[in-house]
């Protein structure tokens, strides 16, 4: 899921592509996907940020896995940030990647 420019390539490798802009319809689309039996939903970082509240609802379920991917505009380091956040949540502080530079 994401803006067209970021995701059209994935159609060629066999993923289903759902173009979505940052508006109210995006949240609805995400819900349709999540409740519609999709196990993995890749979503561009920009849209992920926009839909954060909706995504948080699915966080505690085993499925679907909603995974942010960098869009056409490049990585904002948000994905790495999220990994760090889960370390912080579990350990109490970021002991693993604290001194490494994020981004990729």
């Amino acid at each position: 899921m994401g803006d067209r420019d970021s995701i059209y390539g994935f159609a060629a490798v066999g993923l289903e592509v759902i173009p979505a802009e940052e508006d109210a319809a995006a949240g609805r689309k995400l819900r349709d996907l999540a409740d519609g039996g999709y196990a993995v939903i890749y979503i561009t970082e920009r849209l992920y940020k926009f839909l954060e509240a909706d995504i948080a609802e699915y966080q505690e379920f085993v499925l679907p896995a909603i995974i942010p991917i960098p869009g056409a505009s490049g990585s904002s380091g948000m994905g790495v940030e999220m990994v760090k956040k889960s370390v912080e949540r579990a350990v109490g502080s970021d002991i693993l990647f604290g001194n490494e530079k994020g981004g990729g």
Partner: protein
Amino acid sequence: MAKKQVNPTRMELTAQKRKLITAVRGHKLLKDKRDELMRQFLILVRENMSLRLEMERGLAGAAANFILARAVIPSPVLDTGLLLANQEVGLEAGQKNIMGVLTPVFQFNLRNPDGAGSYSYGLSFTTGDLDIAVKSLADVLPVMLRLAEAEKGCQLMAAEIEKTRRRVNALEYTVIPEMRETIKYITMKLDENERSNQIRLMKVKDMMLEQAHHYEEKAWRER
């Protein structure tokens, strides 16, 4: 420390002692669970991080390739070419139980696993740039799927660890000390009652002896 209001009785004392044993045992078990979860989590999260970095590098490369392709090939040709996918990713989702945390396991199968004929467009109207772009994206795909598994697993485990840690801490720093306090309070109260009872009995005995034998009177007379 704020103490719970309890009846200082023997029955209550036994109940509290039993509760304390359960709490201590639960604490130990939870602590073990937390340690093991943490160990598993650290393994998983390291994998998660390296996969994510790999994916982001791969996607950045693929995006650059697509921009190149887009520059060369007219947009309608490109769009129709990419719309008709020859390849299809089937996904089977299972669950794995890591220390009581259900994490997803994905198994994916490509319709064309060998990649033969995986380009969905005619080669006559497109350039090699597009082939390279699609290829680079196809290469990242397995990483993306593994990442989905690892990342979701990490999130779920992080939540579980947090929960367990809170429980361990609550037991260690609140519940167990409170129980010890209560037990101490009951014991002291019972001892106190015991002593006062003893004294009362001694006093009564003195009084009864006095009544029976009139010691004091005799002592006074002998003087």
